[in-house]
C-alpha cells in the first residue's frame, strides 16, 4: 500500500487509549546507539568512505573584513592530484546565497569577506593533504576594510554596512541596516509603575560567546548520481531545511538532491546552519566523483555559528513587601556577519526576558546586530539563556536590597498557570515555578570539606584547582546560589511548524512489525529510542524498525527548540493511531459480523492481537493482515502561534513553556580565583517522562553545558581584528568529569493537556538556570558583583 498523506487538525488533544506495552512509553529503554558509541564502534559521518572518492577542502579568509581584489588559483589547480578548484565565479546557479531565514550568506565569498574564517575557495583532491596543500597555494589579495565589532561601531554615522541594499522582511522596520531585527515588547506602564517602587536595582550584564563544542566535527559525503543529481550523506539537525537551501544553489530541483542522515556526533544548535553540505555537492557535481569533507577541530570553530554574545541592561523595581513593580530591559545580541537564526533569537530573548515571573509593567527591547564578528545563531537555550543570566542576577540584587531570602523572593513573584506573559499570551498549562524552587531549596546540603581524607593529605580532586594541586583548603569558601528559568518549546511566532511520520505495520514470519520512518535528525537526544517506545505503545507490537532518516519522507522539522519528542514523537503517535484505526477497520470488515464487540467495544492492539478494553481477544494481527500492510504518512502540527506585533510585542507567540530550577553549591579558592562546583541540583517539570533515563541525561547534560559557560567556556574574539583567538580545545575549555559536580535531579510530571501524552519539551531549560545559579553561588562565596560570564580567575582576584 502506498503511503498517503493527511494532516491532522491542529492541536487536537489526544489521550493514551492503549495500555502499557513492553518497551513502551514510560520505560527507560536503552538507546540503540548507546553501546556502539561507548565502545567506539558507532559510525559517525566522518567515518564514511566511498570508492574513488575525493577529499574536499575549504580555504577560509584570514581576515575579518576585506574586499577581495583578486584570487589566483592557477598554481593550486596545477597541483598533481587536484581535480577542481572552485570560487564564487564557478557557482552554477543564479542563487549564490543561503540562510535559515534570510538568504544573506554567500556559498563562497563574492568579492568581500565579512568575518574571519569565511569560505572563499574549495579544492577537491585525491588526498586530504594534497587538497590542503593546494589550497595553501591559492593567492588572495585582501584589501582590508574598517571593522564593525560592537553596537557603537555598528551604528556609528560612518559605519560600514554589512549588507548594503538589504531587502529582507526585517529591513523595513529596523532602525539601522546593521540591525538584523528589533523586537520591542510593551505592557502596562513601566515608567509609571517605577514611581511606586520602594527599591530599584539596575545592572549591566555581559554574556560571552559560547560554542556548541559538539564532539563530531562537520562532515559528509556527496555522491553524484546518474540523473545529474546528488546523494548527500551528512550530519545535520534538519534535513529538509538543508535541502531547501542546497538545491537552489546547485541549480537542481529538490528531488534530485537526496539526503540521508549519517551518524551525528552532537549538535546543540550548531548544525542548524549549512556548513560543508553545499561545498561537497558542488565539488562532487563538478568532478563527477564522490567527495568527502571533514572539518578538523580548528576549522569546526569557524564552520558553525555560535551562541550570541550579549550585553543586557536591566532595571527592576519592587515594593517593600517584595512584589516586583516593573522591569525595563535592553538586550543587544551580536549576530556577527550573517543573519543565521538571529531574528528568532531576538524574538526569544525579548519575549522571555521577563523570566518566569509575574510583572505587569514592562518595557523591553531586544536587537541583534550585524558585525564582522563570527556569525552567531542557534544554540541550546536560544536567546533565553542570555536573558536568564541577567534577570536572575537582578532577582538576587532585589532580594538583597529588600533583605529577603532570594528563593522566597522569587517564589513570591513566580508565575503560575493562568499568568499573562509580557506578550499578552496566557500560560495555559502548569507552571510550577514556585514548587521547583521549593524542591531544590529543600534538598539536603552536600557535606562540607569533602576534600578531607582519613589519612593526612587533602584529596585535591574535591578542591578548586583539582589535580593541579593549588590548594589543600586554603582560601576556600563555600557559596550557594539559586536560579530558575523559562523556555519556549517548538518554533514560535507564527511559523508553520510540523513533523511528518510514516508508519508501516505488517506481519513478518507471523509476527507484527512496525516500521517508523521519519526525517528526524537523531543528534544524540534519543529520539529514535522514543519513537520505538511510542510505536510499541500505540500498536501493541514488540518489534519496531526505525528507518534511516532521509528526505524520502516528509520533513520532521528541526531537532532543536526542545521540540522533537513533542513534534516528531507526536507525529509518530498520530500516525500510529491512524494505522491502528485502519487495522481495526480491516478487522471490522473481515470479522465484524462474527462478534458484536467489533462494533460496540473500545478496541486496542495488544501483543499482536486485537483485544477489547475488557481484555477479550478478537483477532490475531497475523490473520487479520495476512500479507497486507498498513502504511501511512501523516503530518502533525502543534497549535498555531502568532507573530509578535512589531511595536508592542503582543501576540500568542509560543507553543508551550518549560521551566527548570537549579541550586548550585560551589567552593571558591578566593585567593587564586578558582572554582569547584560541588553540586548542581535541578528540579524540572517534563509533563510526562517518556523515558526517564533519557530525561535525566538531558537535564544533566544541559546543566553541565550551563556550568561550562559559567566558569570556562568562551570564544575569545580580538576586538582589534575581529579574529578568533582560541579555536581549539586547548584554549576553548569545556568541563571535564572533574569539573562536573553531582547533579541530583527531581522530575515533576504535570501534564500539558495540549501536548502528546502531556509531555513538555525539556532539553534546553536546564541550560538556562544552571549558569546563573553557579554565578549566584560564586557571588555568595566571594561577595563580588560579577556581571560577566564566564567568570575568570582574574574577575575573582581583581587582576584583569
Amino acid at each position: 500500500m502506498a503511503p498517503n498523506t493527511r494532516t491532522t487538525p491542529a492541536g487536537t488533544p489526544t489521550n493514551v487509549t492503549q495500555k502499557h506495552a513492553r518497551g513502551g512509553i514510560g520505560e527507560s529503554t536503552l538507546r540503540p546507539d548507546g553501546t556502539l558509541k561507548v565502545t567506539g564502534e558507532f559510525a559517525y559521518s566522518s567515518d564514511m568512505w566511498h570508492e574513488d572518492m575525493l577529499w574536499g577542502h575549504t580555504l577560509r579568509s584570514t581576515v575579518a573584513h576585506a574586499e577581495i581584489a583578486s584570487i589566483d588559483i592557477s598554481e593550486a589547480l596545477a597541483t598533481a592530484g587536484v581535480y577542481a578548484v572552485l570560487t564564487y565565479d564557478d557557482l552554477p546557479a543564479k542563487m549564490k546565497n543561503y540562510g535559515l531565514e534570510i538568504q544573506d550568506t554567500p556559498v563562497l565569498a563574492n568579492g568581500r569577506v565579512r568575518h574571519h574564517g569565511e569560505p572563499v575557495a574549495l579544492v577537491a583532491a585525491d588526498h586530504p593533504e594534497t587538497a590542503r596543500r593546494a589550497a595553501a597555494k591559492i593567492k588572495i589579495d585582501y584589501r582590508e576594510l574598517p571593522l564593525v565589532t560592537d553596537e557603537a561601531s555598528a551604528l556609528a554615522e560612518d559605519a560600514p554596512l554589512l549588507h548594503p541594499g538589504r531587502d529582507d522582511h526585517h529591513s523595513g522596520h529596523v532602525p539601522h541596516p546593521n540591525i538584523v531585527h528589533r523586537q520591542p515588547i510593551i505592557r502596562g506602564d513601566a515608567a509609571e509603575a517605577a514611581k511606586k517602587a520602594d527599591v530599584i536595582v539596575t545592572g549591566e550584564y555581559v554574556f560571552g560567546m559560547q560554542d556548541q563544542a559538539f564532539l563530531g566535527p562537520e562532515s559528509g559525503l556527496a555522491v553524484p548520481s546518474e540523473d545529474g543529481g546528488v546523494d548527500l550523506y551528512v550530519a545535520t539537525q534538519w534535513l529538509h531545511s538543508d535541502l531547501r537551501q542546497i538545491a537552489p544553489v546547485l541549480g537542481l530541483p529538490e528531488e534530485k538532491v537526496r539526503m540521508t542522515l549519517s551518524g551525528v556526533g552532537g549538535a546543540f544548535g550548531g548544525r542548524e546552519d549549512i556548513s560543508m553540505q553545499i561545498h561537497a555537492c558542488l565539488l562532487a557535481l563538478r568532478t563527477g566523483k564522490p567527495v568527502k569533507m571533514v572539518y578538523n577541530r580548528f576549522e569546526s570553530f569557524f564552520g558553525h555559528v555560535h551562541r550570541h554574545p550579549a550585553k543586557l541592561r536591566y532595571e527592576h523595581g519592587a515594593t517593600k513587601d517584595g512584589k516586583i513593580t516593573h522591569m525595563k530591559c535592553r538586550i543587544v545580541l551580536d549576530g556577527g556577519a550573517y543573519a543565521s537564526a538571529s531574528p528568532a533569537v531576538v524574538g526569544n530573548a525579548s519575549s522571555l526576558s521577563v523570566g518566569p515571573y509575574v510583572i505587569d509593567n514592562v518595557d523591553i527591547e531586544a536587537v541583534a546586530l550585524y558585525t564582522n564578528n563570527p556569525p552567531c545563531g542557534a544554540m541550546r537555550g536560544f536567546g533565553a539563556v542570555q536573558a536568564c543570566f541577567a534577570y536572575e542576577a537582578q532577582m538576587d540584587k532585589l532580594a538583597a536590597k529588600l533583605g529577603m531570602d532570594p528563593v522566597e523572593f522569587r517564589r513570591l513573584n513566580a508565575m503560575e498557570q493562568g499568568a499573562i506573559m509580557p506578550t499578552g499570551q496566557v500560560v495555559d498549562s502548569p507552571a510550577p515555578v514556585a514548587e521547583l524552587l521549593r524542591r531544590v531549596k529543600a534538598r539536603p546540603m552536600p557535606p562540607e570539606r569533602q576534600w578531607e581524607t582519613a589519612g593526612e593529605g587533602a584529596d585535591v580532586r574535591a578542591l578548586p584547582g583539582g589535580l593541579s594541586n593549588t590548594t589543600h583548603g586554603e582560601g576556600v569558601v563555600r557559596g550557594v546560589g539559586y536560579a530558575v528559568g523559562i523556555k519556549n518549546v517548538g518554533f514560535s511566532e507564527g511559523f508553520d511548524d510540523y513533523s511528518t511520520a510514516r508508519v508501516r505495520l505488517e506481519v513478518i514470519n507471523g509476527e507484527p512489525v512496525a516500521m517508523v520512518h521519519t526525517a528526524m535528525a537523531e543528534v544524540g537526544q534519543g529520539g529514535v529510542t522514543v519513537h520505538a517506545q511510542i510505536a510499541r505503545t500505540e500498536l501493541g507490537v514488540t518489534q519496531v524498525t526505525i528507518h534511516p532518516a532521509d528526505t524520502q519522507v516528509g520533513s520532521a522539522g528541526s531537532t532543536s527548540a526542545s521540540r522533537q519528542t513533542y513534534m516528531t514523537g507526536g507525529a509518530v503517535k498520530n500516525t500510529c493511531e491512524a494505522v491502528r484505526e485502519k487495522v481495526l477497520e480491516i478487522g471490522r470488515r473481515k470479522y465484524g459480523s462474527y462478534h458484536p464487540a467489533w462494533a460496540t467495544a473500545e478496541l486496542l492492539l495488544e501483543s499482536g492481537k486485537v483485544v477489547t478494553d475488557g481484555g477479550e481477544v478478537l483477532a490475531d494481527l497475523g490473520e487479520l493482515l495476512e500479507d497486507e500492510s498498513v502504511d501511512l504518512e501523516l503530518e502533525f502540527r502543534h497549535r498555531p502561534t502568532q507573530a509578535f506585533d512589531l511595536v508592542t510585542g503582543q501576540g500568542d507567540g509560543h507553543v508551550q513553556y518549560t521551566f527548570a530550577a537549579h541550586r548550585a553549591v560551589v567552593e571558591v579558592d578566593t585567593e587564586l580565583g578558582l572554582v569547584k562546583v560541588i553540586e548542581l541540583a535541578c528540579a524540572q517539570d517534563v509533563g510526562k517522562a517518556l523515558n526517564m533515563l533519557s530525561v535525566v541525561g538531558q537535564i544533566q547534560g544541559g546543566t553541565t553545558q550551563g556550568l561550562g559557560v559559567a566558569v570556562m567556556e568562551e570564544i575569545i574574539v580580538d576586538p582589534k581584528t575581529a579574529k578568533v583567538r582560541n579555536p581549539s580545545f586547548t584554549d576553548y575549555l569545556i568541563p571535564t568529569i572533574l569539573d562536573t559536580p553531582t547533579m541530583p535531579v527531581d522530575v515533576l510530571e504535570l501534564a500539558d493537556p495540549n501536548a502528546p501524552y502531556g509531555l513538555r519539551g525539556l532539553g534546553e531549560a536546564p541550560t538556562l538556570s544552571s549558569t546563573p545559579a553557579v554565578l549566584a553561588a560564586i557571588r555568595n562565596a566571594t561577595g563580588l558583583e560579577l556581571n560577566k560570564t564566564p567568570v575568570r580567575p582574574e574577575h575573582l582576584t581583581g587582576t584583569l
Partner: protein
Amino acid sequence: MDFLRPASWEEALAAKAEHPTAVPIAGGTDVMVEINFDHRRPEYLLDLNRVELLRDWEAGEENVRLGASVTYTQIMEQLRAELPGLALASHTVASPQIRNRGGVGGNLGTASPAGDAHPALLAAGAEVEVESVRGSRFIPIDEFYTGVKRNALQPDELIKTVHIKKADGPQQYSKVGTRNAMVIAVCAFGLALHPETRTVRTGIGSAAPTPVRAKEAEEFLNAALEEGGFWDNGKIITPSIAKQFADLASAACNPIDDVRGTARYRRHAVGIMARRTLGWTWEQYRSTGATLEGAA
C-alpha cells in the same frame, strides 16, 4: 616527510647527525599536535620508540637517572618517593592517555614555558644528558632553557637522560589552569626543600619566556631560614617571611597577557602558590624532618 626509525641509540645519533633538521618523536603528544594543526612540517621525523634505553630509569645514591621516554604515568607510580615534585607535576599533565605516552624528554625538547615538568626539575636540581656522534655532555637545567621554545641542544644532539637530584626533603608543585583537569598551565610553581644543603630551590612555569627559578626569593628565604635557625628549631615560618618570599617569587615573573590569563594574574597566582607550597613543604619538614611523598 620521511620517517626515520633507528633500532638503537647509536643509529638514532647517526640519523640525527645525518639529518640535523630531523624532529625527534617519542610519545608524540606534542609533536603530533603540531603536525596535525599544520604548525610545523618537519622534513624528517626521527622515531625514538625503538630505542629501549630511553625508557629506563635508575635510582642511584644521589640522582635518579631518568630516560627521556619514561612516561609521566611511570614517574607518578614508580618515582613518587625519589622525585615527589616531578611526580606531582606529572599528575597535572593532560589526561591519563597522554600521561601513558608522554615523557620528560618531550617537555625538554619542546622547551615550552608551559611544560609541566620544568618547574619541578628546576626546583629539584637536574642535569640533562645530551649526546651526539661527537660525544655526550651534561647541561645543568638552569642553563638548558635559552628562549621561548628554545633549548641548549646542538642540531645534532639528542636528549638521552635527565639526572635529577633525589629528594632530600619535601617537595611540592602547583599549577593554575582554568579547569580542574586536562589543562595547559596558566602558570605553575615548583618548590623543593633541600635540608642537606639548607637551601630552597624553586621553579616557575608559564610566567616568563622560559621556565625560571625565583632566585632572589630563594636567596632571601635561605638567609631568613638560616638567620632564624628554622632548619634546626623547626618553627613555623613567620607570615612576614612567607609573604616576602611570595612577593619575590611574583617579582621573578616576566609574564605576558594571552588568552589563558593576564600577566597581572600570573604574577599574583605565582605569589600565592609560592606561599602555599612553602607552607606545605615546611609543615612536612617540621613534622617529619624527612622526605615524604607529595601530599596530593
